[in-house]
């Protein structure tokens, strides 16, 4: 499940209720491509991004003989709908995806159009995107998608007022973080807010510790499904760091039932009941909408995830969602026009400018001056610098891995955080799940 896109919708449960029936109900195959004469574009519902996209579609349609038609979906049903439609006559021409393992399964099934030759004809477009972000949709040396939304790194947020009252500074290293945990516990403040009812919030810690301790190669091996990849010592060490935080009381005792769906963890940070919160960059928007005074009063602080002394990974590496992508379905009627639409739109000044205008941070080069004039200039500039300087931007594991391994890691990391599994048991369970 992706970070921001994970907020589960009640609508998604229509699919859940029909689970037993649908298992048997799908599976047609045939030529891909839209049933109508329009270019079918599928994307998730978003009240902020979709109007920007719609404007660019209207602009494209005004000058093109083939029109683009946008259809929107809610997160969980979208995954199911796409899975069923791909390879059927009802497949879209352009589809939203998360890169990583989600995109890889469609690429493996031969259903995604490589964009390399088109990009070679438009070198300016390829050069405009940040390389670490573009890499998220590259598989086997070919480019299968282009960034369509903003960068979403995961960072450590903190409550400046709580820190000032305790005379503390935000942590730069793991030992400093542990010292802060002890300090805030003495002050009867839960050190770190954690929405542990969902596994992906806990996974953030495991991912960062693995990266800091073992470097990106450890995760590359997991994604490539190398035998024994989960048994790498760095993963076990990362799991031990997670357990150490839990046992030290870093998250208090309530975290297993705190849900991310109702922004409970964000409220704990804003009200000063917790001092810190490690979350994706969308936390900023969440705070703006749920606790506006907390942000406007400059009480919300942010720093990169702490380094781990002695670790092999670069402390400048970032984990999160590099961006979301648009990809073109192979073998459809409109491959050429669909590709043209993406090349014309996604790197254009009009699209980038409008995305910055709604608070997104597009993964393109040289937009710092534009970000500096945006509404959330401080935070946007911080994120942009963080990602620009990052040697590696690791896509969240639950998206980078195959869907079944991604589901397994979300469950097993939850078991690790409530001590149903110890670090060795976690490694064993993931080794068995692949």
């Amino acid at each position, binding site marked *: 499940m992706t970070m921001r896109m994970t907020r589960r919708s009640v609508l998604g449960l229509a699919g859940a209720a029909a689970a037993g029936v649908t*298992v048997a109900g799908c599976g047609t195959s045939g030529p891909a491509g839209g049933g109508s004469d329009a270019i079918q574009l599928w994307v998730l519902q978003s009240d902020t991004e979709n109007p920007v996209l719609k404007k660019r579609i209207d602009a494209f349609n005004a000058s093109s003989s083939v029109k683009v038609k946008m259809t929107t979906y809610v997160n*969980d049903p979208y*995954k199911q709908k796409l899975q069923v439609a791909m390879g059927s006559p009802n497949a879209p021409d352009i589809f939203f995806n998360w890169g990583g393992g989600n995109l890889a399964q469609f690429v493996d099934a031969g259903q995604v159009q490589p964009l390399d030759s088109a990009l070679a004809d438009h070198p300016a477009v390829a050069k405009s995107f940040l390389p670490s972000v573009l890499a998220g949709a590259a598989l086997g040396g070919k480019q299968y998608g282009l960034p369509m939304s903003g960068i979403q790194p995961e960072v450590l947020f903190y409550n400046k007022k709580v820190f000032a009252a305790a005379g503390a500074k935000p942590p730069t290293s793991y030992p400093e973080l542990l010292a802060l945990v002890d300090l805030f516990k003495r002050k009867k403040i839960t050190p770190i807010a954690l929405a542990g009812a969902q596994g992906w919030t806990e996974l953030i810690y495991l991912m960062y510790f693995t990266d800091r301790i073992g470097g990106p190669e450890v995760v590359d091996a997991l994604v490539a499904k190398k035998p024994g990849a989960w048994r790498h010592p760095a993963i076990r060490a990362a799991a031990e760091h997670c357990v150490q935080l839990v046992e030290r009381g870093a998250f208090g*005792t309530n975290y*297993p039932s705190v849900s991310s769906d*109702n922004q409970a963890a964000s409220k704990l940070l804003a009200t000063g009941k917790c001092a810190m919160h490690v979350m994706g960059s969308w936390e900023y928007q969440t705070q703006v909408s749920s606790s506006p005074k907390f942000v406007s009063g400059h009480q919300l602080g942010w720093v990169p995830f702490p380094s781990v002394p002695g670790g092999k990974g670069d402390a400048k590496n970032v984990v999160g969602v590099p961006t979301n992508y648009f990809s073109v379905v192979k073998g459809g009627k409109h491959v050429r026009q669909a590709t043209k639409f993406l090349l014309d739109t996604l790197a254009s000044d009009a699209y980038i400018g409008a995305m910055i205008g709604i608070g997104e941070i597009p993964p393109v080069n040289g937009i710092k001056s534009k970000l500096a004039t945006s509404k959330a200039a401080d935070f946007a500039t911080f994120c942009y610098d963080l990602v620009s300087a990052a040697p590696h931007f690791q896509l969240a594991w639950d998206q980078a891995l195959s*869907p079944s391994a991604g*589901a397994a890691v979300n469950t097993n990391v939850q078991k690790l955080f409530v001590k149903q599994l110890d670090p060795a048991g976690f490694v064993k369970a993931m080794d068995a799940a692949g």
Partner: protein
Amino acid sequence: MFALLPIVVVAYLSLTAWNGLGAPHWAGLANWRALVHDTEVPHGIRITLLLTVVSWVVQTPLALLLGVWSAGPQRHRAVLSAVFFLPLLLSLAAIALSWQALLDPNFGAPAALANALHIPSPNLIGDPHRALYVVVAVLAWQWVPFHTLIYQGAARQIPTQLYEAAALDGATRVRQFVAVTLPQLRHTVVASSVLMIVGSLTYFETILLLTGGGPGDATEVLPLHMYRTGFVGFDMGYASALALLLVVVGAGLSVLIVRASGFARMDSDREGL
């Protein structure tokens, strides 16, 4: 046909490897071998059975007593009954999400109460040892009205002359309940129990929304494991094997409850009626 055809298709799919894309590949018995080694399966069965048994133990006496009580004639009972039946009118999703908000450890009702009393707030759905019983309580809140309605209807069918006769013999209210009401309701108890037990095997929406199977896998019932495998992990072949297992367990349990139910042998006091 409508029941059998999907089962046959699911049986076929359980012998394939299929992620929902393209055509399923023949995999032989690989999914079934995986089923044997999947530790989530015995765990899921254990949680499912525990949930079923505890739910039955909690819901049946409550529904029986409430149903018999509300079958009485007084007016205030009709008003109270209408209040009891309210949860029946709410959608499953609304119930689960309301309870989730209500039980929120930081902003929910237990936290507010604990703050008022200056005691640490209880962690109800976040404790792996407690979460299942919270689920049982929410399920009971949701389903007791339905079964109460069934018992109310059945209790109203019992002829009043049986109670009059018992009263003439000097039977107390409790004695009347044990000797007259309970035996007269035996078929209703069996029917309600079958509905309850088969229902607890399939109604997983409440768990999905309330705890998502967590914390960890503390409330991960078998249907939830199947749903995750199929629609989060997109492993349709293995999910089909799990679905078939669920069909077998469900059918077996409902046969068992009818067969083994002591109520089927209990004789009626209602000779000739």
